[in-house]
């Protein structure tokens, strides 16, 4: 029960953060990805602010033997930079640029701009399914 409340709270804060920061505004995201044109660098402060918090705290959290409400940390132990990682991330970047949506903003768009969500989300789910089918064996779902 405790873990479910934390997950709900974490989701709520994340969703609010995406809207407040305007990461949920696809036009702004595309402008951020357009340094040779209509560049809007402000979204760098979103990742900057988020990473500032995670970078400043993760190492202290990971010094604990276990999380507060669970018996172990469930994080990826992979360290090698392999081909699926780079191909997948590059393909994701193409998709991100084409619409301005990464998965989080794409999902919350169901309550922001449902007309676009109705087209984007089924494609996202089908894409995930295709990726799942063609993923190499042992490439379990991580982040």
């Amino acid at each position: 029960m405790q873990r479910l409340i934390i997950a709900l709270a974490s989701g709520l804060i994340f969703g609010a953060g995406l809207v407040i920061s305007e990461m949920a505004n696809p036009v702004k995201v595309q402008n951020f990805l357009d340094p040779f044109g209509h560049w809007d660098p402000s979204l760098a402060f979103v990742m900057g602010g988020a990473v500032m918090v995670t970078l400043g705290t993760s190492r202290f959290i990971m010094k604990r033997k276990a999380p507060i409400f669970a018996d172990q940390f469930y994080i990826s132990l992979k360290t090698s930079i392999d081909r699926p990682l780079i191909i997948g991330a590059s393909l994701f970047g193409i998709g991100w640029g084409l619409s301005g949506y990464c998965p989080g903003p794409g999902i919350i768009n169901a309550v922001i701009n449902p007309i676009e969500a109705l087209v984007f989300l089924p494609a996202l789910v089908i894409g995930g399914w295709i990726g799942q089918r063609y993923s190499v064996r042992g490439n379990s779902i991580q982040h």
Partner: protein
Amino acid sequence: MLETFPSQALFGGILIGFSAVLLLAFNGRTAGISGILYNLLYNPLSGTERNWRLCFMAGLVGGAYFMLPVEFELRQGYSPVLLIASGLAVGIGTRIGNGCTSGHGVCGIGMLSVRSIAATVAFMISGILTVTILRNFIG
């Protein structure tokens, strides 16, 4: 380039970082949106393993809903072909590459994971190339 300091972007980013830290410190989990989504869709989970992910997703959408109406103008009339191509590429790419802006960009970099740093560099470069090509040569 910036007319005013982007305090909203910074504040929203800090909230996102705080959300990730909360999930890690208490539940030991990565706040990676694509991973949480695919585990729900394509992994036969039950009990808490399924329910915490459902709670996170409900929170994500609920948190956005509480912030409505948004301050920005909603995009209208965007090409459905681009939206579909985008959804497919984001879906396949984040599954194969094991993460998106949140899992790699926020959580992974926070852990100084070399995989996540490499993935973030890769999706930033391809995202910039895509928008540059889209705006200058196609749309």
